[in-house]
């Protein structure tokens, strides 16, 4: 069927033939089959669609496409009907007949399936009408909703592997590195290290046996983050193409093999990537003599070790070598001595996915989007787009891709549609579990590497958790520290022992056992953990504590001085009282496990604060909303 493409021109010709065979006006129904939508029944929906198409004998007239994640998982399963581009959300198998009759055959939109803006109440006909999408710039995610991730032909038809062909057909490796450097691309996995600088260091690192390793980091262990997942599942070839270009630029004549390290919990990503590699090999885009240019590169997939810390570069390399996924403190950079002590270039998969775009757009056009000036120094700004996983108390949650430098306000309010249930914004946590919490006063801050770091948080891999005024910031700090206690690998003392003590101190605050000395101790302990820890997990772990202490100190003090949780979250500090709505029904009286409630039939009940254990049962069982909590 498919034959290996033996020249750069052959790829072009192959693409032309694919495009010629496709009719853009032909009706097509695209079903999102990202993990989120699949969880909501997208596969059943796809089956139902196909069945309906078969039954009606519409096989030639209509195409049913299965795509990767569209980012708006919360509204899944999502369906887009082409050529009109009608956008439907929360689609169920029962809607299939209507979609075919009304939209496909009659060309009319179905109002019932449209998205209604929860604030403005407006109806969105097409994807671009949805506030969530309107303010995004989807460079990386553009094709997620358009191509079938299991089809290399789909990818090639939309221009895939053109960047690779351009590179292999006419650029020297040094030129590719210069291009990436000028684009200002910085690492999307956490640190924001300029990719071009890293590549150059790796290329220039002496490699006696000519072996340099290229690795894609798809470990993505942050809770709530799924941007890498959606790229790997929705557009695996984009990452692969970036890695092949990188391998060419960095050069490993001794052993042209790279690795992609994928989190163990991502079986679909593993499947899609494995398939993508196989397809690329068959077409001569991966393996020996790529596109007949004499360039060799192949890739192996490694499944992650299952811990958050396995995503850290040295732990990841230890894990690929077959050792425990623990970081190694190396003061010789991994670009010089990494995997197997060979020069190694590790980039996050989103970083790799940017590479074909840079080649296609050119460095200047790429760098035109973003902040700062990278024309002289890639550290001078943050360019291109970044995908964030917007979650928490916003109306629209999901994956959002925006140009670097959009403000938090634009992301949270324009794209996220503001705070849920009409509540007030309180804080946003960026950068994963060891990121910082930023208050309202930071909302107009541009989101890029340097601004986030200066504000005491970080870009991390792009997690963004929005919190409303019902959130207790001390409890948030406690939550993240407890997460990190579990994830600390335990190799170094400050992280292993320091985090558990930090957790003890925070528990003392939320349980009302703390004094002001506790805060001083938290601060000095934070210094030890930050400065003395071996890897970035420990070094950044105090961020949630330090940033909440900085911006929300009054909340800590309320817990300590007044033994009160202002957000009424911390159980131990709540006071339960019964108000005059009480009719004396005796339900709470019977249910209270602490026997703290006294009262007679038809008389106002009273809670004895000395006996109350703050379990909240009374409030839960009262049908009259007569139990107040403060």
């Amino acid at each position: 069927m498919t034959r290996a493409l033996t020249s750069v021109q052959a790829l072009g010709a192959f693409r032309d033939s694919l495009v010629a065979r496709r009719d853009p006006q032909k009706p097509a129904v695209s079903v999102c089959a990202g993990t989120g939508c699949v969880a909501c029944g997208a596969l059943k929906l796809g089956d139902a669609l196909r069945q309906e198409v078969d039954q009606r004998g519409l096989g030639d007239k209509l195409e049913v496409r299965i795509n990767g994640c569209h980012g708006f998982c919360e509204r899944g399963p999502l369906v887009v009907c082409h050529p009109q581009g009608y956008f439907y959300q929360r689609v169920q198998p029962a809607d299939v007949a209507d979609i075919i009759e009304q939209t496909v055959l009659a060309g009319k939109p179905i109002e019932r399936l449209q998205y209604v803006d929860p604030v403005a109440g407006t109806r969105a006909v097409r994807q671009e009408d949805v506030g969530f999408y309107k303010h995004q710039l989807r460079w990386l995610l553009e094709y997620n909703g358009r191509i079938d991730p299991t089809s290399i032909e789909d990818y090639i038809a939309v221009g895939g592997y053109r960047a690779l062909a351009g590179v292999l057909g006419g650029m020297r490796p040094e030129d590719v590195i210069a291009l990436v450097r000028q684009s200002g691309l910085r690492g999307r996995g956490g640190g924001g290290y300029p990719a071009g600088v890293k590549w150059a260091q790796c290329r220039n690192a002496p490699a006696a046996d000519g072996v340099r390793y290229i690795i894609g980091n798809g470990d993505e262990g942050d809770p709530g983050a799924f941007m890498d997942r959606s790229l790997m599942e929705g557009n695996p070839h984009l990452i692969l193409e970036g890695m092949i270009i990188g391998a060419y630029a960095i050069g490993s004549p001794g052993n042209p093999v790279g690795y992609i390290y994928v989190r163990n919990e991502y079986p679909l990503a593993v499947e899609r990537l494995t398939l993508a590699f196989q397809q690329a090999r068959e077409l001569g885009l991966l393996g020996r003599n790529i596109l007949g240019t004499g360039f060799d590169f192949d890739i192996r997939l490694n499944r992650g070790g299952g811990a958050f810390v396995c995503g850290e570069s040295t732990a990841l390399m230890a894990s690929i070598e077959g050792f425990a996924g623990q970081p190694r403190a190396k003061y010789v950079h991994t670009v010089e001595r990494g995997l197997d002590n060979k020069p190694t270039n590790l980039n996050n998969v989103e970083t790799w996915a940017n590479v074909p775009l840079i080649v296609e757009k050119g460095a200047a056009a790429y760098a035109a989007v973003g902040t700062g000036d990278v024309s002289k120094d890639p550290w001078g700004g943050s360019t291109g787009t970044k995908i964030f996983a917007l979650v928490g108390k916003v109306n629209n949650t999901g994956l959002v891709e925006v140009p670097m430098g959009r403000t938090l306000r634009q992301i949270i309010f324009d794209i996220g549609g503001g705070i849920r249930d009409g509540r007030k914004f309180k804080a946003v946590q960026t950068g994963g579990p060891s990121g910082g919490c930023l208050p309202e006063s930071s909302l107009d801050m541009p989101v890029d590497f340097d601004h986030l770091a200066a504000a005491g948080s970080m870009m991390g891999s792009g997690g963004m958790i929005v919190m409303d005024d019902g959130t207790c910031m001390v409890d948030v700090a406690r939550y993240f520290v407890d997460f990190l206690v579990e994830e600390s690998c335990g190799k170094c003392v400050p992280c292993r022992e320091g985090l558990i003590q930090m957790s003890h101190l925070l528990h003392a605050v939320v349980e009302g056992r703390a004094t002001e000395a506790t805060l001083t101790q938290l601060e000095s302990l934070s210094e030890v953990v930050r400065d003395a820890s071996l890897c970035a997990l420990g070094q950044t772990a105090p961020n949630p504590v330090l940033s909440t202490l900085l911006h929300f100190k009054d909340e800590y003090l309320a817990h300590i001085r007044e033994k009160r949780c202002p957000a009424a979250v911390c159980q131990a500090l709540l006071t339960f009282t019964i108000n005059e709505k009480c009719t004396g029904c005796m339900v709470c009286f019977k249910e209270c496990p602490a026997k703290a409630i006294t009262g007679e039939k038809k008389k106002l009940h009273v809670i004895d604060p000395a006996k109350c254990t703050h379990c909240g049962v009374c409030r839960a069982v009262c049908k009259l909303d007569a139990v107040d909590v403060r």
Partner: protein
Amino acid sequence: MIVVINGRDLHARPGDSLLDLARRTGIDIPTLCHHEGLEEWGGCRLCLVEVGRPGGHGAARVVPACLFPARDGLRVDTDTPRIHRLRAGVLDLLLARCPESDTIQELALQYGVRRTSFVERKNPDKCILCNVCVRACAAVGANAIGTAGRGVLGEIALPFHDDPAACVGCGACALSCPTGAIEMVDTGFTRRIWQRDFERVRCSACGRPTLTRDHAAHLAGRTGLSAESFQVCDRCHREQAGARFLDLLGK
């Protein structure tokens, strides 16, 4: 290659870590997980020092001396207030983990920590998870122990917590442990370590207990010597070897 430590110009050799250089020149840097004969671990963080370049900008960096390679022109400070604070903090944490370890108590006291300011661990043992024992056992070639569990819940253990099959009872782990956390008891011809009783070979010449049977077999494998060589204790081995030497000389 000149490295400036605490204001002194010191000549470093290629391959020196800052710790190597400091120790050779009599500069004291405390360590716990460092063992001269084993691969560096970098986990205890007691050997932290500050490094910066002369005239370099930005704050000095805190790095572990055991792992940081000596570089020409590097400026190192081993005893700044910040380093003191960090080491005291680390020891305070270790004291909460192992309140009963005299190794830790003594070190902590040197940094002004008499009692931990943190919450002491429940049912504490003396293990600080420095991994010296695991690395020693790997060097022995037995690879009998490792870390089980992650983070604070981690502990040094046998595979599946209870499989001592690979252990040869040599005791290298217990003898190398900086805090004496590994229990090893010799009674007559039995050695108990890692939940297992090992039989010690009775010296065929003098009748005294010598290596454990497993250790003898392990060493026979590693040295390529006959199993009989290990039927005698070290002293009788010496006598017999001397006699062989005499034979060789033809007296």
